[in-house]
């Protein structure tokens, strides 16, 4: 064991809560790493950060990080986060959610947080299924995929998380994956350092459920799939269509600089209280 623990441990509840609960090879831990590194490189004070989550494997993350941490009800992370951010705008609010959490039961909250441009960074670990409850399909399960509730293959079309939050009004929308982890680090850092509502979709393997049900092999095989089946938006633009077809595009899709809700609200208060004083 190394004498000096890695810097990242500063951000973890390392002594009491590790090893964590996630399965071997689960991608959630890698996303947690990206978040930790982004925060470290931003130099944020741990006291100022609130990590809020819903329910699911991904949503267990707050247990492990040494910030202010809030593990809420299924799908409602953004609503809790909205309240916390409004009550204490100094908090840097980071919502960590699964694909089911954010897009199934929580779908309404994410489009409204996008519309309001609420000053929260939403990090969605998209493992294409409900990991925690044993691998049912989620709104991001690809057509044809097998899950415990699509034994004959998924027949519903899936959401493009990035398209949807973009249409709903989010300030920053990007997709990364846990194989391309340096890229993901950058995306998360970008997202965290902005204002308004920011969405990061991080593709990650769930070998235990999705991987097994779809015979995608172990974690390493699933990482290879991410390596081979995704393509960076810049690269994609250079390549002819047939080379990019069927590949999931990574990269930053929206990077607006619209004024966030918190600032709008502050301005409203300033304006009306000034009017009243007059």
């Amino acid at each position, binding site marked *: 064991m190394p004498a000096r623990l890695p810097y990242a441990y500063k951000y973890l509840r390392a002594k009491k809560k590790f090893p964590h*609960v*996630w*399965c*071997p090879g*689960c991608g959630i831990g890698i996303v947690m790493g990206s978040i930790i590194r982004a925060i470290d490189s931003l130099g944020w004070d741990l006291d100022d950060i609130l990590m809020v989550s819903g329910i699911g*494997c991904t949503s267990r993350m707050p247990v492990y990080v040494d910030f202010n941490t809030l593990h809420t009800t299924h799908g409602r992370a953004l609503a809790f986060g909205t309240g916390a951010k409004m009550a204490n705008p100094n908090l840097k609010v980071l919502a960590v959610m699964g694909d089911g959490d954010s897009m199934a039961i929580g779908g309404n909250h994410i489009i409204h947080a996008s519309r309001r441009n609420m000053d929260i960074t939403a990090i969605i670990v998209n493992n294409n299924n409900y990991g925690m409850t044993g691998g049912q399909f989620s709104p991001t399960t690809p057509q044809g995929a097998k899950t415990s509730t699509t034994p004959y293959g998924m027949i519903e079309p899936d959401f493009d998380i990035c398209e949807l939050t973009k249409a709903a009004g989010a300030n920053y929308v990007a997709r990364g994956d846990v194989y391309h982890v340096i890229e993901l680090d950058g995306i998360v850092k970008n997202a965290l350092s902005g204002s308004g509502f920011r969405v990061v979709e991080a593709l990650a393997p769930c070998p*235990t459920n999705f991987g097994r049900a779809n015979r995608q092999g172990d974690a390493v095989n699933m990482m290879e799939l991410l390596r081979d089946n995704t393509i960076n938006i810049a690269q994609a633009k250079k390549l002819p269509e047939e080379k990019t077809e069927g590949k999931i595009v990574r990269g930053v899709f929206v990077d607006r600089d619209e004024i966030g809700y918190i600032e709008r609200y502050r301005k409203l208060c300033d304006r009306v209280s000034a009017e009243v004083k007059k």
Partner: protein
Amino acid sequence: MKYSEIRLAGSGGQGLGLAGRILSQAAILNGSEVCLTQSYGPEARGGASRTDVIISDKPILFPNCRELDVLLAMNQESADKFSAKVKETGFFVVDSTFVDQLPEGKVYEYPFTDKSIEVFGQKIVANLIAMGMFAALSKFFKLEIWTDAIRLAVPKAFLDLNLQAFEMGHREGREILHMEEGRIPVAWDRKQPVPKAIRDKFSR
């Protein structure tokens, strides 16, 4: 059949759910009552796995195990965690591939996983080898009942493999019984160290 509590414990992916279903199916074919419960909860996430089976001739009322007649421990953690639950008159079957520190009491050990890899080229049928040995040692049911139960519980594609593994385990189990009944007392008392000779025999 008298009231018996059996726990099959190990880690996720070792196929203890299937083992429990085979055992229960056998009980059903035997005309007994049976009640199977499983561990759920966070520890089931790729971690620990536990299947409890209660078999009895009378209706089973309280469904949880309290005093085990048999503990099949497929890893060290389960051996440690549950050994205290085993009755004085009960026994252990452990996978010596993973279990170094044997529990105290009457212990049968065998490297199920190693053998599975060795003989079948994959670790996936360690559970059936273990069930075979369990079948022999427990003397709960006749062999045909067990094989019928496997036929009912296992998907066709894997049936042969599973039957072979089961038979291998059963054979080994019978051999142990012969030894017990003959020369060497295999049923060690609690507290007594495990005779080296037997260990070697099993891990050949």
